[in-house]
């Protein structure tokens, strides 16, 4: 039994399916016959290979290219059962998941002053929690040696904050508190760019716009890029004030 679950969303050219095997095992199938989609799938394969070497998983996750020719690529990935947090619920609601994801990042990406590999969409919506273990999925934006250390977790926190502001229609102090604490736990293990502390949302947005080729047309899917500049400035001012207050 096959189900199409996503089809070329957010500017992607990849179709994604769940295949239900006769032995009740499930597999994710991703395929494309578009040159951009094919590149995304090859990157996803590389990303899984890279991640697999570094993650300590109870069950090895298989990701293989099952069909490949100049105009078509098809990838099969083991389906991972588990819970995916609701990324729109805000930081307080997702605190334990955010802590786990920050900790996961710090384990998989030990601090380096050089450019590091990138997941590219390190989001609550791409985190699967399974029996206390976390696995990140959807590696189609993977790049090796592409971004500053900490990029993915900065992205995670800014995206979570965006959805918090959208949900509550204001910047809540308790939400901001979680943001600050998560950022500080990252800072304990390595050095984020100094500009992050003075204008985190603006800095991340500018960085993504400058490096948009890393995501192709899909860079437009990042929700915080749609924030109006005055609001970004207001948000950054609040956050930088909190950073200063917390030392």
């Amino acid at each position: 039994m096959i189900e199409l679950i996503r089809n070329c969303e957010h500017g992607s050219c990849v179709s994604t399916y769940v295949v239900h095997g006769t032995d009740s095992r499930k597999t994710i199938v991703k395929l494309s016959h578009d040159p951009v989609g094919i590149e995304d799938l090859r990157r996803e394969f590389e990303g899984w290979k890279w991640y697999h070497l570094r993650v300590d998983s109870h069950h090895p996750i298989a990701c293989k290219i099952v069909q490949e020719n100049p105009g078509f690529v098809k990838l099969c990935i083991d389906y991972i059962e588990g819970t995916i947090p609701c990324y729109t619920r805000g930081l307080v609601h997702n605190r334990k998941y955010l802590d786990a994801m920050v900790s996961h990042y710090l384990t998989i990406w030990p601090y380096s002053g050089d450019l590091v590999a990138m997941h590219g969409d390190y989001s609550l919506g791409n985190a699967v929690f399974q029996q206390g273990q976390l696995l990140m999925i959807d590696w189609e934006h993977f790049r090796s040696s592409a971004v500053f250390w900490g990029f993915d977790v900065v992205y995670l926190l800014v995206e979570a904050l965006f959805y918090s502001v959208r949900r509550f229609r204001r910047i809540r102090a308790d939400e901001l508190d979680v943001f600050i604490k998560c950022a500080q736990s990252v800072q304990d293990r390595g050095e984020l760019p100094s500009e992050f502390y003075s204008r985190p949302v603006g800095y991340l947005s500018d960085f993504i716009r400058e490096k948009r080729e890393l995501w192709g047309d899909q860079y437009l899917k990042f929700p915080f890029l749609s924030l109006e500049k005055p609001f970004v400035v207001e948000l950054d001012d609040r956050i930088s004030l909190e950073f200063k207050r917390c030392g």
Partner: protein
Amino acid sequence: MLLFYSSLVDFLHSQYAMIDGLFVADVEGYWSNLTKAENKVILESLKNDSARETLLRYQPWIENVIYSPKRQAGLELLQLQGDEVCIDYGCMWGALTVPLALRTRFVLSVDQTLESLQFLKARLRDESVDNVALLRNDLRKMPVFPEHVRVDIAVVNGVLEWIPEIGDIELKTYYGRRHMKAYSGCPGEQQEAFLRRVHENLNEEGRLYLAIENRFDFKMFLGIRDPHSNTLFTTILPRKVANWLSLAKLGRSYVNWTYSFGGIASLLKRAGFSRVELYMCFPDYRFPERIIPYENKWLKDFRPTISIRDINGRVGFRRLVGRFVETMVFKVFRLKSLSPSIIAVAEK
């Protein structure tokens, strides 16, 4: 091409003349979203420009219809291995021909409209796809293939409902307009006869991919017009009543028969197919967002597919209502028989 599919190509050579790289039967016929005059402009431009550039210059609205990577998503239901020989019945501009050709051994693409095939030929040239043969023929007049050239896969995508139609169709000037026409025969019988021929031309392990609108698409109950005739309620009413309505409004019988899930399964069984798997397709089979097996009882993971925003990003009231109704019908009440489109994968 000759290396791998010489038997089928030899057969085509024995049956048809070859003109300008196309196999051509002695038929007339035209079915296109474009008028003949518009097609003429397109074909003239193809002499100097690529197929895609030509469309973007002269008919930009149709570029996404032809080239969207979304269109081929249903083909995965066939679980293609890469060595199949396929027929795309009613291929038009190659929305499924090209993806099929990129992942199988060979595709014979058949259409009655010469202009569509000429465009497709240019498109295949641009995209360096060389495992496709093009045949201009009336789909109702396909010959029976000798056993040794019968194919693995047949694709009938948005075609079945047009089989009973006759005469030249320029959709812009035909759709919803009054054109007096006299048909003969029963549309259902004509569709069945076509499917029988499709069945005959499959080899023993052959499979059919068929996509069509659901007769009982929930939107049809809400006053959305029949997408083939622009009439109200004709898909859901008994055929006789639909006929009267069509005669009254359009001056011609209602022939664009679509089916329910049960109806399609019965039709395919009558045409000789042995095993039929049915899929619900949202929001439609042309640009699917979700394809769900019909046997999925609960639709518990269903997410609405109707966007509240139009292509300009504006929120529309009708879209809001549509999304709400879609959520209620499928996620809450789980009325899967009212899905917008049907995909059937049938085995010989």
